[in-house]
């Protein structure tokens, strides 16, 4: 088994045929047991979040006075929290809030990382600057970066998206930069250059399509890291603003009631685990497909 970071480029196919094959490779990767389980886990969580209004009739923020910390009884299938809010409803709407943040933050990171990588490979001085910038960001643990950015921007959804984007940008950037550097010096690229292809054409037609594989795989991984980061931020109270439900915040709030009301904590634990495991399985499946 090879470490996931190495990607062996396939032979050099013609552009159109290769495009189809690329798609097929990903599909083939996803059609393995690994891929299917991963897709199922993520799909299930996603569906639960999307269908929240259908699955529960409770407003996630409604505080009923007559059921506090009730463990799954009567009208509340998953029980209520210490303010009398329906836990199932908070869990489902929490999924929505989480995924929204993740789906906003990761593409921004991918875009920013890839742009910076292109910039870095275009010019030597830019390369040095971009590399040092990535170093600076990477030298802080994600949560400490989160604390600092939150101090500047205040608590809220926007802050979490910025933190996710900031933390994940160097990952995308370094990956694409490395891949471009590798593919630029391969025989087919050299051949195309000798054949008179301009730098832009070389990049878009020959180098980028081949260098894109690791980025696609990394996207799934980055999503899982974002889910973890969002959870950690709301766990320590710098995530999405209350009263809106968030998985990490629900988990943190459940702590005093672990003994009497374990379902309280169980909900977010299961959902976060399913999401993270599912996304990682998808990443692995994509990776295997890409390497085939």
């Amino acid at each position, binding site marked *: *088994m090879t470490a996931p970071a190495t990607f062996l480029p396939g032979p050099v196919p013609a552009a159109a045929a290769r495009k189809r094959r690329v798609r097929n490779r990903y599909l083939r990767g996803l059609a393995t047991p690994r891929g299917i389980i991963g897709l199922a886990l993520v799909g299930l969580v996603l569906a639960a979040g999307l269908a929240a209004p259908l699955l529960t009739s409770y407003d996630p923020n409604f505080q009923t006075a007559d059921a506090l910390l009730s463990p799954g009884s009567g009208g509340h299938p998953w029980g209520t929290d210490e303010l009398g809010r329906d836990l199932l409803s908070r869990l489902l709407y929490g999924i929505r809030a989480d995924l929204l943040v993740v789906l906003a933050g990761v593409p921004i990171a991918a875009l920013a990382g890839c742009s910076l990588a292109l910039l870095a490979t275009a010019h030597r001085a830019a390369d040095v600057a971009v590399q*040092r910038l990535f*170093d*600076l960001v*990477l*030298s*802080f*643990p*994600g*949560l*400490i970066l989160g*604390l*600092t950015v939150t*101090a*500047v921007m*205040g608590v809220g959804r926007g802050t979490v998206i910025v933190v996710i984007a900031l933390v994940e940008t160097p990952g995308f950037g370094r990956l694409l930069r490395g891949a471009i550097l590798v593919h630029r010096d391969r025989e087919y690229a050299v051949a195309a250059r000798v054949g008179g292809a301009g730098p832009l054409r070389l990049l878009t037609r020959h180098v980028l399509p081949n260098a894109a594989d690791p980025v696609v795989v990394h996207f799934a991984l980055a999503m*899982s890291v974002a889910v*973890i980061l969002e*959870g*950690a931020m709301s*766990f*320590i109270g710098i995530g999405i603003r209350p009263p809106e439900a968030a998985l*990490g915040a629900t*988990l943190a709030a459940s702590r005093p009631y*672990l*003994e009497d009301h*374990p379902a309280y*904590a169980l909900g977010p*634990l299961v959902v*976060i*685990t399913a999401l*993270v*495991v599912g996304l*990682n*399985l998808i990443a692995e499946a994509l990776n295997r497909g890409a390497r085939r």
Partner: protein
Amino acid sequence: MTGYLLRRLPSAFGVLLLASFVIFLVLRAVPGDPAATLAGSDSSPDAVAAIRHDLGLDRPLFAQYGTWLADAVRGDFGRSYLIGGSVSDLLGQRIGNTVELTLGALLFAITLGLVCGVLGVTVKNRIGQTLLSAFNSLSLVVPGYVTGFLLVFAFAVTWRVLPPGGHESILADPQIGFQYLLMPALALALPTAAVLARYVKDGLEQALGEDYSRTAKSLGIPPRRLLWRHALPNALPPVLTALGMQVGVLLGGAVVVEAVFAWPGLGTLAEQAVTRRDYPVVQALLLFLVAVFVAVQLLTDIAYALLDPRVRLG
């Protein structure tokens, strides 16, 4: 080699200097006044102004930066606004706690990694293999606060055998300290253990496939002896390299695990200092993290240079 080092060192210091400047500026851009937190909730504006003056916060920014940098170069990181004592002492103590946690986790990770890796080669039946690989995959990806919660639920709530959080120095009181350390260290160790297990397994498989292994087998050396005496020593060097790379991962993970277990380390100090704008502490702490990162990178580069003369000369 010296030439290479001389070329790399300025860039490392450059990153540090850049970081010191960025950290200083970002902190001052943060709304919220450290003097106000110091003054307390029922205090008046003139008390805050007096404290600002006392802390030197009313001086021009660049003068403040200059003083701080000049002192920092001499190893003096000032005094914590909030805690009063010297920042170096405070940081040293908290780093000690984080190191304690990280070392505990490292021990767990190595043990678990070796066990799972060796099991990965020796367990032959399908169910065992599936279970092992599922355990590894889960350990690798499930975040520390989730495992931490599950551990608390199991060992501090359901069976009350371990404290749900807190810290007692393992040096001061080994017995009690050990019990406080167990759960956080385990929660922190799992992802690293999974990475190590994979390396151990790959290394063992490779070593057992080598010519000398096959020869030894044909000579009738028992498989167990072959595994422990021949294959394992050969599989270890890449594991050690992987271990080195995991140090950063453990430090990052420690921040989260500390929050779950109220472990008084760097993470909890960072939270306290950032939310109360204890500038000297935040500055020193962030700069320390950058320094660690730069040092690790430098060491990695040097190791590469030693192995690959082209890098050294190019």
